[in-house]
């Protein structure tokens, strides 16, 4: 690869965002258009990844390597494999949609908003590309700044509490991970290259310590129970675009962290901590779902449902078998699409009503049938109806966890029931029931909003009906990952036990 495509992907939006600085702040339309064009170009740039990606090798592709801090053996090292490629594509899409959904919702400090959004995009892509643990950390933390601003400046009434909580929560976790990273550096041959680090073996005690250090950062980001309480606040207060990015990609970074770092580098600890992780995931699934039933705030409910869904994802990942991990990764994408779409929808409706209280809605299906249709579709994807993407992920996750630990699947499957309960209840309270006087005469979705939602619909069905198009990207990489985790020895536990 002579063209540094990944660097371009990371820095193009950043540079693009900064180029907005030069635009007069009153020309908001121009700013929006520019942001949109930058976002679209970014998507365009990411397309070659999709087509040129070699699915037959677990090796990192599109790699770039430049010494950065030679004294410490820190390199600017990028590359993607079948696990990370999808997130990059997703990030590009979600950013464009976020730009579109902010089109009219953001009226104050427009310029700054789009700068923050584009910079955020670059940082997130950086997270998914980095092959150097240090570099990863840089992106991981740098992304906090724009997100902090997006929630804090353009958020709801309690935005400051929410954003500070978000920031501090994640920062504490990240800093503990930093300690872990440095420790790893010393024990892993003075390098931050994750492939090198994965090649080393560490004593079980050390692995355990490092595991918890990384856990601190990743679990908060996921967020796993019981470090999830920042999420409802952040989601609730963030502007629509913020919620979308948060739900769609940002919290995926936690799960991605587990996949990319915890598992291959600390295989023994990963195996040892499998059960606790599964138990935490199960708690998250059930807890997140049940607590949704008590929510009166629209966004808060979806936020808690994210906790539940992310529980599924971590459950899948820590199933440590092909179906579980592939399902987990796929579900990350799916959750990004579905919850992202739900937040997009909520953003659209919030723009009209300026209320997030569920009780203020009712009978919306009469006033906004098209919107109701979209929302229904995403609701169904969220509850995992077959033929939607949500099903594929949940099915693979549950199957994966059933293969090795049926009890885990047993508890997790209750999430299916509870998920249907709270989602449908939500749907009923918003769209069904007698028409609430507060929603009378709301305008139906406009073209821009339909255009935003259509790609999500397409993805819901595309993945739901033809998941192989994405799963095929990860087969080899996941197999490689599992080899690393199980050291090739424990292969039996990875496949279903087939009768003779």
């Amino acid at each position, binding site marked *: 690869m002579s063209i540094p495509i990944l660097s371009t992907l990371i820095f193009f939006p950043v540079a693009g965002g900064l180029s907005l600085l030069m635009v007069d702040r009153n020309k908001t339309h121009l700013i929006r258009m520019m942001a949109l064009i930058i976002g679209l170009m970014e998507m365009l740039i990411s397309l070659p990844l999709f087509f040129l990606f070699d699915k037959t090798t677990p090796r990192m592709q599109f790699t770039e390597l430049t010494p950065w801090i030679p004294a410490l053996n820190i390199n600017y090292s990028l590359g993607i494999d079948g696990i990370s490629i999808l997130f990059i594509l997703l990030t590009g899409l979600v950013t464009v949609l976020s730009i579109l959904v902010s089109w009219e919702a953001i009226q104050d*400090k427009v310029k*700054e908003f789009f700068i923050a959004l584009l910079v955020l995009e670059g940082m997130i892509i950086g997270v998914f590309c980095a092959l150097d643990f240090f570099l990863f950390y*840089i992106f991981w933390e740098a992304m906090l700044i724009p997100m902090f601003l997006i929630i804090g400046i353009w958020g709801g009434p309690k935005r400051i509490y929410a954003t500070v909580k978000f920031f501090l929560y994640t920062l504490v976790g990240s800093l503990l991970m930093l300690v872990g990273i440095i420790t790893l550096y010393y024990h892993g041959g003075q390098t931050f290259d994750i492939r090198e680090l994965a090649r080393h073996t560490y004593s079980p005690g050390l692995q355990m310590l490092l595991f918890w250090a990384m856990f601190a950062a990743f679990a908060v980001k996921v967020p796993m129970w019981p470090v999830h309480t920042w999420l409802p606040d952040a989601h609730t207060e963030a502007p629509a675009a913020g919620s979308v990015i948060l739900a769609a990609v940002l919290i995926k970074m936690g799960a991605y962290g587990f996949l990319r770092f915890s598992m291959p580098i600390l295989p023994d600890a990963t195996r040892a901590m499998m059960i606790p992780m599964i138990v935490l995931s199960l708690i998250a699934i059930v807890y997140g779902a049940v607590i949704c039933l008590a929510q009166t705030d629209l966004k808060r409910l979806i936020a808690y449902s994210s906790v539940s869904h992310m529980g599924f994802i971590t459950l899948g990942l820590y199933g440590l078998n092909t179906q579980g991990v592939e399902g987990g990764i796929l579900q990350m994408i799916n959750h990004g699409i579905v919850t992202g779409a739900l937040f997009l929808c909520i953003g659209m409706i919030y723009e009209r009503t300026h209320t997030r209280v569920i009780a203020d809605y009712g009978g919306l299906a009469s006033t906004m049938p098209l919107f109701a249709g979209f929302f229904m579709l995403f609701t169904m994807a969220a509850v995992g109806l077959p033929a939607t993407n949500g099903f594929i992920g949940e099915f693979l996750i549950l199957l994966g966890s059933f293969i090795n630990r049926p009890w885990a699947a047993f508890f997790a499957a209750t999430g299916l029931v509870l998920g249907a309960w709270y989602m449908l209840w939500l749907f009923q309270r918003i769209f069904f029931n007698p028409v609430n006087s507060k929603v009378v005469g709301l305008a139906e979705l406009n073209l821009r909003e339909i255009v935003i939602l259509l790609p999500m619909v397409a993805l819901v069905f595309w993945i739901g009906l033809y998941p192989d198009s994405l799963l095929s990207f990860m087969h080899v990489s996941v197999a490689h990952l599992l080899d690393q985790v199980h050291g090739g020895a424990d292969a039996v536990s990875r496949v279903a036990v087939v009768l003779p």
Partner: protein
Amino acid sequence: MNMINWATFEPLLPEMLLVCIGLALICLDLFVEKTRELLPWLTVLGCVTVLGMVIGERNVTAFGGMFLTDAYAVFFKVISLLSVIMATLMGEHYRRVHGLRHGEYYALMVFAATGMMVMASAGDLMVLYLGLELMALSVYCLVGMNKGEGRSTEAAIKYFLMGVFASAILLYGMSLVYGLTGSTTISEIARYTAATGLTENPALLAALGLIIAGFCFKVAVAPFHFWTPDVYEGAPTVITAFMSVGPKAAGFAVFGRVLLSGFPELQPHWGSLLATLALLTMAVGNLTALVQTSIKRMLAYSAIAHAGYSLLGVLAGTADGLSATMSYLLIYGFMNMGAFAILVLLSSRGAHHESLDDYRGLAKSHPLAAALMLVFMFSLTGIPPTAGFIGKFYLLRAALGAGYTWTVIGAVIFSAISAYFYLRVVRYMYMSEPEGELDFSYTPGISAVLGLALLGVVGLGLLPGTIIGWAASALLGQ
């Protein structure tokens, strides 16, 4: 008996030039009224020249080991000079707004810089002490400069009295070391202790304890930090900025030099002591900063906290650690100067605008100032990709490498806590509506400082390789 001739003084050239500049400044101020406007620029010019000379210095051990111009010294001299340059530029702005008598102001700053450079180069306790006093006396005067203002004088008297006390303690420790080793030259002390097994002598350790106490005062390590908030708040803002960078760096220069060159064998002893003190410092600095409503005072506490972080590198007792501290001090210099420059920028005659409330909605009325402050605040928090993160990372790495895991964990936790009060500034600027009108303008001086600081914070954040490489080689070459 060695003869004293011109060549002997050659390594001293930059310092001598600096003294000459100082004298010239006073003379110009006294006798040539018209040049007053030019004095800050002359100072900057002179300092830049000296900076050039310093960087070009050869590694020489002069005056029988009393004066070392090794790369370590050069590094700290660069920090000192940078702090003077930036403070001078800031002072140029400050003068326009507040009106300080400036001839002495620049001269004293230059003399303080001379003191710092002497400290950085000191290879002997006597030289060290004298350099320290040279710097300290200049700074006492600078702090008390706003004679009309009660708090400036209060700061000066507090600083002075505590400084005197700390010097006395330091001196007592030095006298004991002299008695125990028969020398005041650091390399000599190290050689003697190693040769005679003095390392196990409790008296030597106790004396070292007193010396550490003296140094801790200089770099504002808890529980010797009590002067810092009061003095930082009371002193003219420019001086505060200067103090938080230059003199502190010089303090660390001698701290590191004495401990690592003078008493390397005692590292297990002073390492654990310093680890405790570092944690205490971070705790005090970060926690107390949480409840401040004045940004200036908050930055003072943050300076304490950062002293705690910087100590991580020293206590590691390795070349790695020391180079981490060095890099950190340089980075801290940029970001802290930047933050103070914003403070200076916002202050106007009669109103200091140091309260958090004055920053409400700054992003709306003055987006550029707010954006810069944002960068500096994130850098002080230690969030990448700013230089503050790189510095902190390097320190943590060094301390972990030396095995101080729990200290490091404490450090990161306090670092997370610190995010709260740094972000509060950002919150006030970006997430509140403006209350009153703030009127200020960018002068060339302050613009230059801001630009320099931004360049440092972002540049070192994105391309930290050079600085870290330089700091590391400074120690390897030692």
